[in-house]
């Protein structure tokens, strides 16, 4: 079972690395959806297949929200504003990838020194979650297009979600649902905001937001 958990966690890292190096938005969204699916399956690999609210309902809701609904909203957004590329981010794709490697090292280093209240099932779980948070934050601050920043936010949130899964074997499902709902609403609002940015500036670049005008 831990073999499958490890495989899923490694998939998470690899998807993050891909997102750091991607230029094409539609492919990025597909990978983000895949990450949502991996996150949905992750608790299953932990608890096994027995019927309880944790093993059925939560993965199902995660799957629907992170794997289907959010990617759909993002797809709709890039269709409406008609862009499909993150052309020149503040930090280039290759440099981002190197930073990604750095984050992985840092998070392993940190998690070895981190004192956790509970035992974690997999040795690489906490570092994977930490690196995911860091990479999400990195995407959030180094990308120029608002939509890629939303994706960065989602990666960040996925990292936090994975971290919570690692720490609290049975997180109260009300909290999980609350978090999922929050993310869903956040992306929803960002979708509306993206449209407003597009209507006002004919573009998607957050650079415009730094300029003042009457």
């Amino acid at each position, binding site marked *: 079972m831990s*073999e499958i958990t*490890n*495989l899923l966690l*490694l998939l998470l*890292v*690899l998807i993050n*690395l891909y997102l750091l*190096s991607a230029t094409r938005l539609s492919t990025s969204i597909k990978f983000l959806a895949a990450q949502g699916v991996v996150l949905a399956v992750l608790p299953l690999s932990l608890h096994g297949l027995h019927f309880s609210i944790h093993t059925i309902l939560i993965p199902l809701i995660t799957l629907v929200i992170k794997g289907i609904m959010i990617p759909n909203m993002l797809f709709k957004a890039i269709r409406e504003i008609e862009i499909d590329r993150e052309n020149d981010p503040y930090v280039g*794709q*290759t440099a981002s*990838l*190197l930073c*990604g*490697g750095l984050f*992985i*090292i840092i998070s*392993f280093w940190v998690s070895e020194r981190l004192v956790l209240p509970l035992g974690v099932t997999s040795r*690489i779980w906490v*570092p994977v979650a930490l690196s995911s948070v860091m990479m999400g934050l990195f995407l959030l601050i180094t990308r120029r297009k608002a939509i890629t920043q939303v994706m960065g936010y989602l990666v960040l949130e996925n990292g936090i979600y994975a971290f919570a899964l690692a720490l609290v074997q049975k997180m109260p499902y009300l909290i999980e649902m609350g978090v999922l709902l929050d993310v869903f609403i956040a992306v929803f609002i960002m979708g509306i905001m993206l449209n407003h940015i597009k209507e006002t500036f004919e573009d998607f670049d957050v650079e415009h937001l730094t300029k003042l005008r009457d």
Partner: protein
Amino acid sequence: MKIGIPASLILYLFSLMAAPLVPGIINRVKARFGGRRGQPLLQPYYDLARLIRKGFVYSRTTTALIYWGPLLQLAALGTALTLLPLFPGVPPLLSMPGDYILLFYLLALGRLFTILAAMDTGSAFEGMGANREALFSALAEPALFIILATLVHRSGFLSLSQIFVESSAPLALPGAEVMILMAALYLILLSENARIPVDDPNTHLELTMIHEVMVLDHAGPDLAVIQYGVSLKLWLFMILLCQIVLSVLPNLGVLMPLLWLAALLIITISIGIVESTMARLQMRRVPQLLVAASALALVAYIVSR
């Protein structure tokens, strides 16, 4: 399993003989994908024989480097091959602590002479090719050494012979990490051997070439030596990949040679399939691919610690 020098020697000679077959098989796979029958499998051997019968042609601007370059490159590759365990359980001809570093610096030495010979011709195109070759190989090096570090770290031994021959379970890595390691090594294999998606061995446009443009001014026996060196290098990387693949599979005893050949054949065919189905990357995207390979290797290294 202790097998003495004769087995190593036979394997080494077999490798020297069989290496040019690999490009032949790759060409056949590509031809099949293109709906053609393809050249004979032994075509690389015919090419080598044809080239060796020709005379030397040198430009007046060149120095002795253009003569010695290909030979030294082949010598470096031939020496490098003696350090690599060619078959699971059979030690290499030479082995010493730290020989994996020697192995890859011998490859680098070979590349240095190819580059020097290319620059010696004074052609702008060849200088450009040499430039790219040097850049991409420098970018591939971190990935290669992280992969080796993973092998050394996991096995706890300092020579390739010990890593692959003496330790009973060379890697003892969980499946996922080995797959990432193999993916990284595969990307490096494609890049180091100038295959698609980094370089196209069949291209005829000098502007886009990397390896081929460096050898434009070589003719006759020199070209034969270079082409043989190219196939030897491909063989070397394939063997390394094959060793890692076989180290995670159970030991089948008598069937091992079959498994070994099958693994090599699968790697060869997969290169052919990649070349037939993928377009090469834009030149400026290649560093990203190589950094991605390093990142993959890094993940495998850290996770497997």
